[in-house]
């Protein structure tokens, strides 16, 4: 570990004449379209991106966190507990690489600004300077700034998904609210919305559990969404979703309001510490017992429900073709639920460094879908709205998700908090 590198992160980087990222932003240079060849415009746009990324990464908290981690890494007895050591070293590595990347952007920005200024002083726009540091012409520096500007724009998005579990796959669970068939129909529409959304993003989808309603829709369903950053995106959907429409199930054509709750559970990777489950703490049962069972019954329904007795957490699966597989799938859901509970408990303990999205209550209303008397979908957390509910219900959710993720990470007025 190079300590010099770490302290460098604390000392604010600048151009040779002392211009910092903050300084550039304070200059209020006008930002033109990126095709305009104006170095001040590029520099201002890059500075803003760096600022935003640092904010999203909770920059000021990363530095002390890194110090704590380095201290622990230097302890001679660290590897006595390999799981803990692995976790520490992974987090350390991840923070280091994030900081290195942002610092690299800063450095690049300042080098190009220095170059451009120097070239202008020489009053020669195409002057080739001597020495390895000054081998770029002003024109090339401008081009490099342009490239940097578009690269860093992409990094803004990546920084939205920098949470520890964001890159994981996840389970999405939809549960119908009170209100019978109307709500169950709504729950199945919401589930369909997520399936389409996941399909659009190229994620794999497996139905784990589905409890159909008596007449229509679903009482509850769980799908597994496989792919990079599935959790990072889907976590923005946790909460109650409200529908207002003329119910197709109401012969009097009255307007109804229905709710469906959405829960999202990350599936931790192999390297993570997972909650140990004791077999003796489990109650395993057939979900729907077929009378006498055994040889008397031939049913392809082999649904299983597992209850973790100490916590009361349950999981069920009925879409696999054997009871053994249903049990294995239900166990995977149960494991992830217990992991999530444990993470929430841990998050409360180290509240100061965890970017916690769990303060969004499972029950709190996050979004309304109005089909009557007017048509609109509105997110109550961000005020983001769309006037075409059909496109949203067909899975066009990214606008809602990204606006929520940026709002929740960018809202702090306080710099880099």
């Amino acid at each position, binding site marked *: 570990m190079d300590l010099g590198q770490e302290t460098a992160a604390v000392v604010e980087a600048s151009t040779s004449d002392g211009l910092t990222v903050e300084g550039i932003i304070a200059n209020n240079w006008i930002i033109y379209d990126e095709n305009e060849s104006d170095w001040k415009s590029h520099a201002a746009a890059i500075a803003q991106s760096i600022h935003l990324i640092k904010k999203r990464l909770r920059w000021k908290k990363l530095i002390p966190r890194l110090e704590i981690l380095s201290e622990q890494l230097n302890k001679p007895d660290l590897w006595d507990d390999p799981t803990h050591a692995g976790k520490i070293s992974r987090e350390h590595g991840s923070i280091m690489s994030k900081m290195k990347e942002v610092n690299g952007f800063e450095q690049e920005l300042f080098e190009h600004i220095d170059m451009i200024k120097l070239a202008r002083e020489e009053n020669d726009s195409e002057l080739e300077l001597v020495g390895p540091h000054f081998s770029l012409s002003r024109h090339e520096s401008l081009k490099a700034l342009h490239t940097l500007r578009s690269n860093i724009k992409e990094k803004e998005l990546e920084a939205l998904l920098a949470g520890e579990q964001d890159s994981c796959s996840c389970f999405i669970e939809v549960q119908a609210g009170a209100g019978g068939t109307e709500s169950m129909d709504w729950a199945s529409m919401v589930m369909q919305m997520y399936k389409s959304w996941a399909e659009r993003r190229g994620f794999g989808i497996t139905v784990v559990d589905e409890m*159909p309603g008596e007449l229509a829709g679903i009482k509850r369903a769980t799908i597994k969404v496989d792919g990079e950053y599935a959790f990072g995106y889907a976590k923005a959907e946790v909460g109650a979703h409200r529908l207002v429409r003329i119910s197709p199930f109401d012969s009097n054509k009255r307007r109804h309001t229905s709710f469906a709750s959405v829960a999202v559970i990350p599936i931790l990777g192999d390297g993570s510490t997972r909650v140990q489950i004791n077999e003796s703490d489990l109650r*395993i*049962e*057939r979900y729907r*017992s*077929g*009378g*006498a*069972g*055994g*040889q*008397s*019954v*031939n*049913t*392809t*329904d*082999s649904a*299983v429900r597992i209850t973790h007795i100490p916590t009361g957490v349950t999981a069920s699966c009925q*879409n*696999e*073709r*054997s*009871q*053994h*597989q249903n049990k*294995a799938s239900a166990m995977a859901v149960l494991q992830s639920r217990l992991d999530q509970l444990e993470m929430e408990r841990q998050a409360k303990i180290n509240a100061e460094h965890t970017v916690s999205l769990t303060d969004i209550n499972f029950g709190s209303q996050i979004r309304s879908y109005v089909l009557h008397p007017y048509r609109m979908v509105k997110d109550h957390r961000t005020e983001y709205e769309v006037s075409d509910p059909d496109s949203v219900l067909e899975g066009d959710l990214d606008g809602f998700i990204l606006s929520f993720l940026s709002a929740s990470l960018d809202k702090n007025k306080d710099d880099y908090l």
Partner: protein
Amino acid sequence: MKSSCFTRASLSSILQPVFPPRSNPGRPVFCSTAVRPKPRTPLYLRPPAFRATFSELQKWHIWAKNKATSVGPTFSDLDNGPDSALLHRELNWLVEDAVENPNLIRACLDDTAPVWLRACLEELYEVWRQRIEERRPFQYVVGCEHWRDLIVSVEEGVLIPRPETEVIVDLVDDALKRNEELRNGGVWADLGTGSGALAIGIARVLGGRVIATDLSPVAVAVASYNVQRYDLQDKIAVREGSWFDPLKDVEGELSGLVSNPPYIPSKDIDGLQAEVCKHEPRLALDGGANGMNDLLRLCNGAASMLRPGGFFAFETNGETQSKILVDYMDAKMKGSFCNTMIMSDFAGIQRFVTGYRT
């Protein structure tokens, strides 16, 4: 095969039809060395040699869905048979097994786009009609049952392994974990093996060998086929014959014994759901007047076949039979067995009797 069934190659000649002849009156009952009936290849293992257009497949799928929907609660009210929801799930699985790329069915393709099938469309119409109208078990339709982490080939004449029976493998696994002596190998037996599911299941958790027996030549053929598919020929020997008859050479030496014998009382069979009483082999279901004929015979045999300390696990019809069996062992066969226990299945029904030879 109808002429409209386009085949990719001349593979149709090696494929057998999905629906086999209903009976084979010429087949001898005992034929340990005679030519064995050839087991059918499960649908999902057949080559995707049949071409249809996307719209033809869609049309079949819609027809099949409507057929499933039309059932409603009729069967479940009638004899505890499948309802529409379950039939819809089975239809998804049939698509999974029959279509080379099952995700296509949800895609939006050109009507004329080709799709490759493992059975021709006429067969798919026919087997789904059989499923709904004749109540032919789904597992016979696709030629397999997913059981534990196995996919076991099944066909008419062989009992479809039940999810309850999956637990016996866990019981054996638990016994091995608790008992070092059992872990040292030795020969186990699965009597009345049917498809061979249980024998394969325990062979995969055991160190030692398993002998699987069955009276039915069809069962012996299917079990042998499944053993081969899981590449366990070296571990599992399938022998034809009644109960302990083919095991004379290992008398008193068995380390373990498992069985899911016929246990339904004769008079109850006709009242069971159509999938069971009209299609599954009576030989594998009928346990005599009170259903206990074979269980008691197994009990008696276990005393002489197991070595001291040997483990056994039997499946029963439920609480009544389990209690009778344990009473019988503890009272009538006093001293032969120890640690006899009744274990429940996932539905909470007291389904299994386990214990050790003293």
